[in-house]
């Protein structure tokens, strides 16, 4: 038989067919409805992984998302995912899983030598050694430690899957679909409230799916679940989300959910996202996350075959899998007894129930007796035997002295344990709520709500089926009322059986073994033992946070859900302080590990960030032009022709502009329309320059500072009318200039009658620059006189371009005769193609940003962000002329008066010419007065722009240099690794200093 540990019947699996899967290459079979863990157990496989530090063989411990041991890698069509919990991986046909953290194989792992050497590796050992010789840390020790650490192997290939996102709003979000969650969802939904119910598992029902010793309304709990779910599914106001983990509880009732859409499918439709992020704003939240069982901390409590008792019961009742043939049940509480009874009822030999308590409830003892199960009361497990699978347990007898007497050995192939229950308060804790200690149940339970949430059922520290249902109904009704003000009366279901149990234990159990030799694990995955916790305390770690960080307990992938309470109790004992005084660690999001792809969502490739294109984009692509990224924009960079490299292309473009004409796409420059009676007054206050006397139809260069006095942006501003200006900004600065203007306008000068409107995307802009610019545009411009007299440099007119209204600027960023034509964007393509065709006739060229940079540098025009860096004043930049001398105020005016901004020795913008005209300085290179400065000598400045200038036939550079304006004609140096480059300080204008070419 292929599944030797499968029960004859029962469980929620589909026995009508078999699914084939592989584990470490070995083919096995299971059924639909299985998890990988249940299928492995059905095949008798317990050993599924190796532990983190000691590489000890480890088996499946739990049946839920808290699983610390059964972490596997899953392969699917070239995609590989590490560290998946076998307890959460739904079985599908063809599933390929591998074990992790072992070499060469799971059965024989050389890393297991660590276990033998473990006396050398107590908590924090690495802080105390590996320091000699010094150079060995990153070369020898660290690589060894790193190779040994880690769990699964990282994926090797880019992910093929997609991830979805959905923003949602609801009145009540219910997280968890056990008895209290279902009751809460129903109660809330019946009021008409918008409800989202999510559960991390494939099926709704939680613990009810493995409950067979109780009834609800006289029915099998699973049938009750099916009926409730069907009712909810039929309601329009309810969204049901199975396979969906509420993983993050953020401020203002924002809950993040991770929905696994296709992971359970053998061959999913590729159009489906693998997972979907739900970002939910819930008016009210019901946390019905249940409780998880606590391991018992006894020596060798980590052998494969040792499971939590409730997991054993779940595997049996829900999945039809027996965890072993001879099972020992070790417990400190009532609930584990039911696991023993259920197993016995399925013909499994329960070798004994060992209960820590002197007198377990008589009712349980008599049921056990009726089934012929041996009961050992006052009995503790003091160790286990077997390496890759438990084969026997050592029992000890609790003495009144607190000592333990040897109680013999008992053979078993599985051991179920229960130290009691821990409410899952992770989401509550994430909501910033503080838990409170409840001595009666020995658990931390949710305290006062900080956000609009309430916990229900076991998550609230309430056990027992009826109590959970009642609490759930109340939570659902209360949440709906709080969210919507509405309420409804519904029938509450009645239960029979499923009473809450008693008992439980915390911390390390006593034993009669040599304490220094044995390991009793507190945190399985991180291999933290009770000894480690005690050692941390001995070394002065007093806060639970220190203990956690020093030992790494609670830092594994379950975030300490299994280990925290035991660790806390051990620390409390060692510190001789009450448990509540030791402190609590905080649960963080995500509740369970959550795929990066889910967070990244659709933000990949071109959707990583909007790609903003201008109307000439397709034309540029067609002509083989290259682009550069400027902000979100793609700007044409240069246009190589006939195999030109960048240098050759740029040189040709520059020459062509100076000799005939060039066409440049300036659409990306920010454009702001400033309109209203106070438009001039507003600009007067924003920009350094004076605006009130600028005549309509004329333009002026505007310089924008921040209130600290430093240059932040610039651009040409044209006055269209008395009450209307067309402002241009830099491409990258457009959003921040607009925001800054709104800020001053709304909050400092709300009395001004002026409004600003972004028109960046309203207009496509073509710059035509060069001696033949007028000839190029003349055939297409109607309605105005283009002559120098009628349209001088720095003017603007409304005109028509081939019948389309346009704003025609006569401006230049090249030093040549230049025009910039603004047409409504939808006509941009037509304009561009018209002009591109026309310049061909004149021997012109399209040019890109690189040539633009060269041309402007030849003229000493600055580029904000390149020649300035946020520390440059107008005076530094040699632009004192841009400051309106008689203005009462402008942004930055007072800032400029501060001592350091007026100080001597400021760095100032100058030109640099290398003594050797062929040497092109590197941008960013430092400038010094000393030819060979010693290391550590402060630089006197740096090169901001540097190009080969075709017009000058030599290289040119701009630089920010200390006292630069006074150094004109002096020699400075640019020290490079190969030697110092002598340079002469010059003015910033290299070409056509008189500006004759502009005014033609």
């Amino acid at each position, binding site marked *: 038989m292929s599944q030797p540990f499968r029960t004859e019947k029962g469980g929620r699996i589909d026995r009508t067919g078999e699914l084939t899967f592989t584990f470490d290459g070995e083919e096995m079979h299971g059924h639909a409805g299985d998890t990988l863990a249940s299928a492995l157990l059905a095949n008798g496989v317990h050993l599924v992984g190796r532990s983190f530090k000691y590489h000890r063989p480890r088996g499946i411990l739990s049946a839920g998302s808290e699983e610390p041991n059964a972490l596997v890698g899953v392969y699917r069509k070239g995609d590989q995912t590490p560290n998946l919990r076998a307890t959460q991986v739904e079985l599908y046909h063809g599933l390929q899983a591998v074990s992790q953290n072992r070499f060469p194989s799971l059965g024989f792992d050389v890393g297991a030598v660590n276990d033998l050497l473990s006396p050398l590796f107590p908590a924090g050992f690495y802080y105390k050694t590996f320091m000699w010789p010094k150079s060995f840390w990153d070369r020898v020790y660290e690589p060894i430690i790193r190779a040994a650490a880690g769990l699964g192997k990282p994926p090797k290939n880019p992910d093929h899957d997609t991830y979805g996102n959905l*923003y949602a709003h609801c009145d009540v979000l219910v997280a968890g679909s056990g008895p209290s969650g279902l009751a809460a969802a129903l109660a809330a939904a019946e009021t008409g409230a918008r409800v989202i119910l999510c559960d991390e598992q494939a099926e709704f029902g939680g613990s009810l799916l493995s409950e067979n010793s109780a009834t609800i309304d006289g029915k099998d709990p699973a049938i009750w679940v099916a009926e409730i779910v069907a009712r909810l599914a039929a309601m329009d106001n309810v969204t049901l989300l199975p396979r969906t983990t509420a993983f993050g509880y*953020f*401020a*203002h*009732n*924002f809950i993040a959910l991770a929905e696994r859409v296709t992971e359970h499918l053998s061959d999913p439709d590729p159009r489906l996202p693998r997972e979907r992020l739900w*970002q939910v*704003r819930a008016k009210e939240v019901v946390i019905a996350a249940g409780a998880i069982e606590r391991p018992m901390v006894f020596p060798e409590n980590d052998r494969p075959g040792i499971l939590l008792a409730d997991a054993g019961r779940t595997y049996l009742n829900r999945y039809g899998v027996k965890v072993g043939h001879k099972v020992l049940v070790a417990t400190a509480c009532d609930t584990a007894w039911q696991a023993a009874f259920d197993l016995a009822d399925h013909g499994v030999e329960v070798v004994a129930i060992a209960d820590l308590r002197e007198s377990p409830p008589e009712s349980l003892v008599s049921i056990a007796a009726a089934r012929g199960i041996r009961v050992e009361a006052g009995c503790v497990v003091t160790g286990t035997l077997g390496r890759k699978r438990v084969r026997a347990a050592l029992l000890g007898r609790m003495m009144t002295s607190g000592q333990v007497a040897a109680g013999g050995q008992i053979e078993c192939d599985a051991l179920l344990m229960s130290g009691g229950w821990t409410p899952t308060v992770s989401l509550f804790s994430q909501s*910033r709520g503080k838990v409170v200690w409840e001595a009666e149940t020995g658990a931390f339970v949710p305290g006062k709500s*900080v956000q609009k949430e309430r916990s229900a059922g076991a998550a609230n520290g309430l056990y027992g089926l009826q109590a959970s249902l009642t609490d759930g109904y109340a939570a659902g009704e209360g949440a709906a009322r709080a969210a919507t003000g509405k309420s409804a009366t519904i029938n509450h279901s009645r239960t029979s059986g499923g009473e809450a149990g008693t008992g439980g234990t915390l911390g390390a159990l006593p034993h009669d073994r040599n304490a220094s030799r044995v390991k009793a694990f507190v945190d399985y995955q991180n291999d933290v033992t009770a000894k480690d916790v005690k050692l941390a305390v001995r070394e002065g770690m007093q806060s639970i946070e220190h203990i956690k960080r020093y030992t790494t307990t609670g830092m594994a992938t379950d975030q300490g859900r299994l280990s925290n309470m035991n660790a806390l109790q051990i620390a409390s004992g060692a510190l001789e302080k009450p448990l509540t005084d030791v402190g609590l660690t905080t649960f963080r999001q995500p509740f369970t590990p959550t795929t990066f792809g889910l967070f990244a969502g659709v933000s990949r490739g071109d959707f990583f960030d909007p790609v903003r294109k201008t109307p000439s984009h397709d034309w540029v692509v067609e002509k083989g032009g290259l682009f550069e990224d400027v902000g979100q924009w793609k700007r044409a960079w240069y246009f190589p022709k006939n195999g030109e490299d960048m240098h050759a292309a740029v040189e040709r473009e520059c020459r062509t502009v100076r000799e005939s004409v060039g066409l440049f796409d300036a659409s990306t420059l920010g454009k702001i329309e400033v309109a209203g009676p106070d438009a001039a007054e507003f600009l007067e206050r924003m920009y350094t320059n004076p605006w009130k006397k600028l005549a309509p139809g004329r333009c002026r260069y505007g310089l924008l500072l921040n*209130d*600290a006095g430093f240059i932040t942006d610039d651009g040409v501003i044209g006055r269209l009318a008395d009450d209307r200006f067309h402002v241009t900004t830099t491409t990258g600065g457009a959003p921040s200039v607009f*925001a800054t203007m*709104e*800020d001053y306008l*709304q*909050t*400092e000068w*709300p009395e001004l009658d002026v409004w600003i409107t972004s028109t960046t995307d309203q207009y496509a802009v073509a710059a035509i620059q060069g001696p033949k610019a007028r000839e190029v545009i003349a055939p297409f411009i109607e309605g105005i006189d283009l002559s120098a007299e009628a349209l001088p440099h720095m003017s603007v007119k409304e005109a028509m371009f081939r019948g389309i209204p346009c704003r025609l600027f006569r401006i230049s960023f090249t030093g040549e005769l230049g025009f910039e034509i603004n047409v409504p964007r939808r006509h941009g393509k037509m304009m561009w193609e018209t002009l591109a065709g026309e310049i061909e006739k004149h021997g012109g060229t399209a040019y890109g940003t690189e040539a633009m940079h060269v041309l402007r540098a030849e003229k000493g025009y600055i580029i904000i962000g390149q020649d300035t860096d946020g520390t440059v004043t107008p005076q530094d930049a040699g632009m004192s002329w841009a400051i309106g001398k008689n203005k*009462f*105020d402008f942004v930055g*005016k*007072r*800032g400029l*008066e*501060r*001592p350091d901004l007026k100080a001597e020795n400021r760095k100032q913008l100058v030109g640099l010419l290398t003594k050797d005209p062929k040497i092109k300085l590197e941008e960013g290179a430092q400038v010094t007065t000393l030819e060979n400065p010693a290391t550590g000598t402060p630089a006197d400045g740096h090169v901001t722009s540097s190009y080969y200038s075709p017009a000058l036939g030599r290289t040119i550079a701009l630089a920010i240099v200390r006292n630069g304006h006074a150094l004109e004609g002096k020699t400075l140096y640019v020290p490079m690794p190969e030697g110092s480059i002598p340079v002469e300080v010059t003015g910033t204008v290299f070409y056509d200093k008189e500006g004759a070419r502009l005014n033609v």
Partner: protein
Amino acid sequence: MLLIYCPYCQIERAEIEFRCGGEAHIARPSDPEKATDDDWVEFLYMRSNTKGIAAERWRHIHGCGRFFNAVRDTVSDEFLKVYKTGEAKPDLEAIAREAGK
């Protein structure tokens, strides 16, 4: 991601629609000639950086575009009051008392 009430749109929207503008009620000295260097550093840089109840500026940048002010507890991030630009600074201590902070 906070949930913020815009007093102009009169609706709560997700924080991604808003830009925080820092501490509220820091007036820009109206006469630059009279402002001392100390006045100016106060205006430019000095901030209360309150732990507790504080008034701050927000702009509904991806909504109506308006600036407004809000009183928020910087420990819990809870908003206690929202009001329009130009309205007087509320009594933060009274708001704190009322909120039981």
